[in-house]
């Protein structure tokens, strides 16, 4: 059985904890996962001209985010059919509904008590999700995986 799920992300390790939690509670299901990020493109004409979704997303990756994402992929290899990080560039209800329908999203998981970080042109589209007629599940995190919260810590390395 395959299920397409969507999790809003702001490229922090914290937002990946939701994914880890969802996957650990759903054995025997293969997931098509979409990590969705919202950012409005810049108004500048030159930036619009060279706007590429892939590049915007790639620039957002931080080492700790990549590391945590790879850890999750390895941990739940059998439960992940595919994992894509995508972005929408319009903060409107209709655009979101359109996107979700196109992707065939079956369920949305959001972080129970945390809001997405929205630096720069990024926006938090989570409040629009409840109008989309797709079940939205709020995930409360247990302190089960401390490793995540520590990945982004400031390590002084013995040698490099």
């Amino acid at each position, binding site marked *: 059985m395959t299920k397409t799920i969507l999790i809003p992300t702001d490229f922090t390790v914290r937002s990946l904890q939701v994914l880890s939690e969802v996957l650990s509670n759903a054995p025997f299901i293969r997931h098509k996962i979409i990590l969705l990020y919202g950012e409005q493109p810049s108004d500048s004409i030159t930036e619009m001209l060279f706007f590429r979704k892939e590049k915007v997303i790639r620039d957002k990756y931080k080492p700790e985010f990549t590391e945590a994402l790879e850890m999750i992929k390895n*941990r739940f290899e059998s439960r992940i059919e595919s994992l894509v990080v995508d972005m929408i560039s319009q903060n409107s209800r209709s655009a979101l509904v359109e996107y979700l329908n196109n992707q065939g999203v079956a369920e949305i998981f959001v972080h129970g008590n945390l809001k997405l970080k929205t630096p720069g042109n990024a926006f938090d589209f989570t409040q629009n999700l409840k109008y989309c007629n797709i079940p939205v599940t709020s995930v409360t995190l247990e302190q*089960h*995986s401390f*490793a995540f919260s520590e*990945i982004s810590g400031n390590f*002084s390395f013995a*040698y*490099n």
Partner: protein
Amino acid sequence: MKTQTRIAVFLITTNILMLLLFGLAIYYFLYNYSYTDFYKRLETRASITAEYNFGVKNKNSESYKQIRKEILEKLSEEKEYIFPVNNEKDIEKASQKSGLPLGFLNDIFKNKKANLQIDDTFFSGIRHQNTDAEEHLVIVSAKNYYASNHLLFLRNIILIAVLLVFVVVSYISFYFSKHIFDPIKKITDKVKEISTDNIHLRIPEVGNDKEINQLVITLNDLLNRLETAFETQKNFVSNASHEFGTPLTSIMGEAEVMLMKKRTVEEYEISLQSILSQAERLNEITQSLLYLSYTGYANKKGLFEITRVDEALMHTKEMYDKVNPKNHIQLDFSLLPENPLKLKIIGNKQLLYLAFSNILSNACKYSNNKPVTVSLASTEGQLVIMVKDQGIGIPEEDLKFIFDPFFRASNTAHFDGHGIGLPLTRNIIKMHEGQLGISSKEGEGTVVKITFPLANLPLNYGLMKS
């Protein structure tokens, strides 16, 4: 040759060469052009001469002559020749009469026009047929004043210009090459000042010269490391003598007290017990030092094989449970990868046990057996181990020294230890091409992050074996 001179010579040669090429090209092309142009002018004059001599109508010939005189500039030693020719004989006659070469006249007759240069004098001739169908050779000759004088003048100008530029370029090049090395000379002088006594001195950064600043930063970086190394060495000697000194002093004290007077057998036994434990401590330190120096040399690699890290961790925990049954070590496998290949590294099991047990025992020791969590996860190419304790932490100012042998953080006075464990662990992890990172807050706890590169195994590795 000094680099300075080399730069100057290079600059001068390239500049002068380019200038010379430029001058020569100008001279050459102008020279060629002036000749073509001059022949053209002579030819025009020849046709005008023909026109007014055998002109269309006699009326016009006078005005032609007038116009030519008034408008066309008189060339130097300009001469006109007109020969009526109807056959070869006439040409020979004309040649004898005028002294012009026969070949030239033949050329004109055959090709309708021809050019010739004798010394400074240029000849241009055309074959003309008048209204009565009589053939004439019309030749105009003149000296090319422009070529002989103007070009000479141009040549002199170019030569003088090259000379002048040579002088200026030489001066600038030498000045430039002399001063471009000024900042480097300054740095050299500054570095010479720094010795072991004042190794804290640093080289000041200069203006906005990016390359030179890069050099300064690199040198300062090197000095920083040297200073740390010196510091480490000093620490090592003082700490090592302290570590060796303490048990030795107590052994000597114990023995001296015992030897003061006759003692009972029980007293001797107690004393010898104490001496033995101190000697054991000494032996332990020596053993660890030996291990440290053994792992310090990468070439003594020993047996490296494919090792499952989760098994190694569990084994270490079992061993440590025997040594310290009160520990609260939790192995957190919530992020354990599904694929066992992602848990395998190339490593030496004994050394890995040693490294892990050092980290675990530190975590338990400095937290008085509070819970310690060990997590294991793997990324694309790396295996990550995190060990988190709730211990006393490491003061920030001590953090950069904790990998130095015999160094002990300032808040560890109440804990037993001799400061070899962590450097040893670091050496072992380094042998495995891994990384050891420590993040700590004093009073809150410490997180140790160890990463190892995963063994590069084929996907069907397990299947092949079975």
